[in-house]
């Protein structure tokens, strides 16, 4: 859902309409840089011990690894409208959501490394991040985010709280029955739920055209009288503007909404993916729409930042990511006996 680059006056108009200030935009730029730096650092560490033969079980980080580079604008655009008390339920590709929700990068990295200082003491791993303080959960099971977020939304409404719950998902997940079933319930009870579909055009190796007859998932919401926004997921401003409407509506008691953000993942579905289901040219085309570069250019055009300021923010993000990785690497592993603890509360 690429949208043309607005002329400067229009850009100002759009920012104004969305209530986006220089300060917020710079914070979003920094956060997107942090996510990118974090993901690329994890990719580096994940690769350790996995060359020349890629063996998922080798090296300091084991198992599957789904990174979000390219999809930063969606997480940041949505989560910059949330507070700690709002709930987010994420997916198998959760790092950008976690960082955007304000989860400590060090404890996040430590969980990915399976360390005792990790968010879940090493029990969860990269697809299973939980942070009660930030009201953040996720699941490696596709389609699992929707009903759980609806449950949080139900709880907020029942308890008379003005919080919202956000379910992130991929476009592939929206084919799952849980998407339709959740919309049924959320629309019926007008729950403060916002479903955010990151349409990165692929589910694993399966291109969207091979899994969905129509062009988009979001029109399905109309069948439930739920408003839907189809936005440019490579543009944090566009995501933010739609998310603001959806979230404010939900907070005010007017029920659920769906946001479908068309975006692209620059890395494979998981690390080690041979990517023979897509072309290099396609990846390059989407590189030209890099959400971070795009936002940077706009900040410069607006004269809200110069190149040096942006470089400074990028450095700051690199340092924060490096610090998180250092913390994770220096942390101890959990004691084996902990494996048997914690099945029941």
């Amino acid at each position, binding site marked *: 859902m690429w949208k043309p680059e607005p002329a400067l006056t229009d850009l100002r108009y759009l920012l104004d309409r969305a209530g986006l200030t220089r300060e917020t935009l710079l914070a979003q730029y920094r956060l997107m840089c942090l996510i990118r730096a974090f993901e690329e650092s994890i990719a580096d560490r994940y690769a350790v011990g996995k060359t020349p033969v890629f063996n*998922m079980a080798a090296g300091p980080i084991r198992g599957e690894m789904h990174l979000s580079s390219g999809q930063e604008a969606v997480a940041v655009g949505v989560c910059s409208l949330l507070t700690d008390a709002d709930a987010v339920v994420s997916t198998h590709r959760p790092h950008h959501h976690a960082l955007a929700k304000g989860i400590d990068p060090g404890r996040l990295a430590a969980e990915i490394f*399976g360390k005792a200082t990790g968010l879940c003491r090493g029990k969860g791993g990269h697809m*299973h991040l939980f942070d009660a303080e930030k009201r953040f959960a996720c699941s*490696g*099971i596709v389609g699992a985010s929707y009903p759980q977020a609806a449950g949080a939304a139900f709880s907020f409404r029942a308890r008379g709280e003005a919080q919202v719950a956000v379910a992130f998902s991929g476009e592939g997940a929206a084919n799952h029955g849980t998407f339709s079933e959740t919309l049924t319930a959320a629309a019926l009870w007008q729950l403060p739920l916002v479903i955010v579909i990151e349409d990165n055009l692929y589910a*694993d*190796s399966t291109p969207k055209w091979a899994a969905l007859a129509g062009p988009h998932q979001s029109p399905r919401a109309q069948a439930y009288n739920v408003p839907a926004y189809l936005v440019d997921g490579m543009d944090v401003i566009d995501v933010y503007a739609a998310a603001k409407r959806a979230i404010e509506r939900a907070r005010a008691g007017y029920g659920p909404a769906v946001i479908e953000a068309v975006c692209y993942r620059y890395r494979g579905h998981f690390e080690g993916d041979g990517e023979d289901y897509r072309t290099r040219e396609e990846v390059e085309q989407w590189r030209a729409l890099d959400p971070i570069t795009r936002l940077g250019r706009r900040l410069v055009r607006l004269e809200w930042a110069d190149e040096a300021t942006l470089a400074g923010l990028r450095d700051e993000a690199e340092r924060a990511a490096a610090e998180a990785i250092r913390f994770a690497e220096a942390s101890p*592993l959990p004691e084996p006996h902990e494996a048997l603890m914690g099945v029941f509360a």
Partner: protein
Amino acid sequence: MRGIAFAIAEAIDQEMAGNREIVVMGEDVTYWGAVFGFTMGLHAKYGRERVIDTPITEQTFMGMAVGAAATGMHPVVSLMFVDFLGAGFDQMYNHMAKNHYMSGGQFAMPVTVLTAIGGGYGDAGQHSQVLYGLFAHVPGFKVVVPATAYDAKGLTLTALRDRNPVVIFGHKLLTGLPFLPFEGEEEVVPEEPYTIPFGQAAVRRAGDDLTIVTAGVMVPRSLRAAEQLAQEGIGAEVIDVRTLVPLDVDTLVASARKTGRVLVVDEDYQSFGMTGELAFRIQAGAFDALKAPIQRLAVPDVPIPFSEPLEAAVIPSVEGIVAAARALVGARAAAD
């Protein structure tokens, strides 16, 4: 041949070539060969008409398999990881497994389900389970757990000729794919098609002091344990059940009667699963010949944790099997 993935894919290819009713469906069965290779190469040969990537809709494609099987086809369906069964299990356990019985025998259900099982490579609680015990618990599924490439091919061909739902549980660490550790061995697997009947356990190693009964990746692990035990003068007989349903009780009982000591090793959760069931069946036939209570080693009723030391603490290892066997044989002194 290296690993069960090639063997399963070859079996499907050989049967598909001659049987037009076979279609392969599931997530990522084309480019990715269902991720763990069980369908690799089929897309290139048969195209998207017979090798079909489905949307992420387990309930629906499992239900479609039921409907297609009831109308003359033989669907081969991939449940990418067994851990995803929750997303499609109703169609499987209430329909695929029961329709033949509930229809008074009118509808056979020739469906072959391929699914990947097992942990040990850091994929955590929702991608490392084994869960064949759940399927074996429900009447109507045949439950196949190949431990070798030879078996994988022959058992898959049997499944593809069976008129019932057969679930093939392929262990990820036996696939032989380069991105995972491999605990199997290079094997000679005949090129031509052959079948292995269900319900015949394989005695993988003979021994007199105890019987280790197991399945899947725990077969090579138990064999490694048996080698170590042999150096200590303990003779372990290792039996690969190959199919949980139907189960070859006779072979298990005969071995138990011979050795008098049985250790059941399983990568599934310990309670209410394969270990308890096998122990029950074995004692029912060998009680008077047992020299010690049957012992078991399985995942101690916790989800599979992510972190390496935690994961290693719960999934049975060669050392764990050796220790359990030693303890069981140590019981000889007390019993003799």
